[in-house]
């Protein structure tokens, strides 16, 4: 138990370091953008004096490193600064956008796992059958679809033409169904494949043969002994995929005009709104790190073998 604790605390420390590194990279990339925020904030007709005053008030005239130090100090106190464009606090901007993104991602992950788990198990059970090969082809196509294109097509066919779903916007969970479906089509096949290969490996192991020899029902063998072990590597990938999921979420939110973190991030990049860029990137990085950390904890809970290593 002690070993576990040390390991996990070192992981936690490392996560903080990763986020620090992320903040350094993002800060210097975002500040390399050659726009003059003071001029933008002052407006087109501002005189030189106003611009200089803003530049001084916002500390734009300090050296970069000092600015970074100031940013970090604020960050340590939970202050991510204010948007250059709307003057809204970055934390508020992110928090008001969070529900849409969180609900969309959760809904999508739950749906695609509900689809991928049985499909993955069945294709492993009936390997090289017609069903298996169809799933492989469909999964490859799903993985190859551009999110923005698929979103538009679904929006046109199922919302605009057929009217099954709301076309865009966010006024309740019904508005999330189609964006979630987009993500499910993109990712479900891939996860079905992951579960498939993991299952194939597990099903040829000794303990599964043992379970069969004991005379357990096929369902018990597949799900209790097979799936439980097969899911472990899949969870790892899911944790690492959070960053990739965010990419899909950005496009999906964009197509369906969802007021989420993705649209916020896109807007901020086009507005050169550096505090929001920093905030959204750091926030998503924190999500990725937290997901990896979560996977680590889950491991210890699901798989007792990890503790011994």
């Amino acid at each position, binding site marked *: 138990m002690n070993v576990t604790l040390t390991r996990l605390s070192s992981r936690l420390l490392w996560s903080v370091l990763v986020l620090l590194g992320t903040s350094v*990279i993002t800060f210097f990339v*975002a500040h390399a953008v050659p726009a003059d925020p003071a001029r933008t904030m002052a407006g087109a007709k501002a005189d030189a004096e106003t611009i200089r005053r803003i530049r001084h008030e916002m500390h734009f005239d300090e050296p970069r490193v000092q600015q970074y130090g100031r940013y970090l100090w604020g960050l340590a106190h939970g202050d991510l600064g204010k948007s250059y464009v709307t003057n809204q606090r970055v934390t508020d901007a992110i928090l008001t956008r969070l529900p849409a993104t969180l609900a969309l991602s959760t809904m999508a992950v739950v749906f695609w796992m509900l689809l991928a788990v049985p499909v993955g198990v069945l294709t492993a059970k009936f390997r090289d059958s017609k069903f298996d090969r169809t799933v492989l082809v469909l999964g490859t196509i799903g993985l190859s679809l*551009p999110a*923005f*294109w698929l979103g*538009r097509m679904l929006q*046109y066919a199922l919302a605009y033409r057929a009217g099954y779903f709301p076309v865009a916007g966010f006024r309740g969970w019904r508005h999330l169904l189609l964006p979630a479906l987009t993500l499910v089509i993109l990712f479900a096949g891939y996860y079905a494949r992951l579960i498939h290969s993991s299952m194939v490996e597990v099903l040829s192991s000794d303990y599964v043969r043992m379970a069969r020899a004991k005379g357990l029902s096929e369902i018990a063998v597949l799900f209790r002994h097979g799936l439980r072990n097969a899911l472990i590597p899949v969870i790892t990938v899911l944790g690492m995929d959070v960053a990739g999921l965010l*990419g899909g979420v*950005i496009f999906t939110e964009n197509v369906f005009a969802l007021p989420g973190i993705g649209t916020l991030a896109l807007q901020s990049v086009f507005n050169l709104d550096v505090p929001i860029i920093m905030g959204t990137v750091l926030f998503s990085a924190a999500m990725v790190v937290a997901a990896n950390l979560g996977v680590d904890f889950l491991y210890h809970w699901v798989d007792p073998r990890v503790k011994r290593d």
Partner: protein
Amino acid sequence: MSGLLIVGSLVLLALIAPTLSRHHVLLDPVEQSARGLDQDGMPLAPSKQFLFGTDNLGRDVLSRVIHGARISLSVGIAAMATATIIGVTVGVLAGYYGRPLDTLLMRFTEITMTIPALLLAIAFAGLMDGKQVHPHPSWLPWHFLDVTLRPGLGSIFLIIGFVSWTGIVRVVRGQVLALRERDFIQASKALGSSDARVMLRHILPNVLPTIIVLAAMSTAGTILLEAGLSYLGIGVPPPAPSWGSLIADGQPYFIAAPHIVIVPGIAIILTVVGFNLLGQGLQDVLDPFQKPVKK
């Protein structure tokens, strides 16, 4: 090897596109003609003359999509090459030298992985606005090193390459770690080969099959990313017909003329499926992961 077939024919089509246009097999991709619009100035639906219809400026969609293949494929492949070079270099160095370099490089990779590639790419693309960069110390007159950052083919594939190398590192490093302990590497070292020689002559050829498979698969990713960036309007600047920007340009006319959006989308899917299948096929042939799974 259906992947090879798809990718091969796409590359061929992209290569001969200008010749086809010159011989009037294909229409001019940038010619805006009144013939290509109806009386109300709207795009034409697919017909015998325009197989996939015309876009909002009366340009032939088929021709623009085929010419778009030149841009999407070259950006995708160049970005893949950039990503592969970075990924393989980092992976081989980390795996070969072990700690402390390994720790340093892998930690850096991990940090890069936490930043969503799309956001990083957009932020980089924001840098490309004609600013001059002097990568040499100011007291040295090395002005040949000056780079002007501007949007274009060159910067876009570098950007995509810079954000998509992390996946390659892990696999390559893992393989190198295993190879390093093998007898023939030890023997070569014992014979006094330099580290560079061991890496280039012994390690690299043995990782090559893996690299080829990873390269084919990552091309699928880079082409999707290029399409995405162009869709958002920060990819290859117009009037170059990139698939992503074709879709973005067609969106306002989507209800009236859905073919403008559908056709380039299908081109993207076909290409990405092609590269994914190519990767899977190569994996079966080269079997770099050496899975003991037998039928």
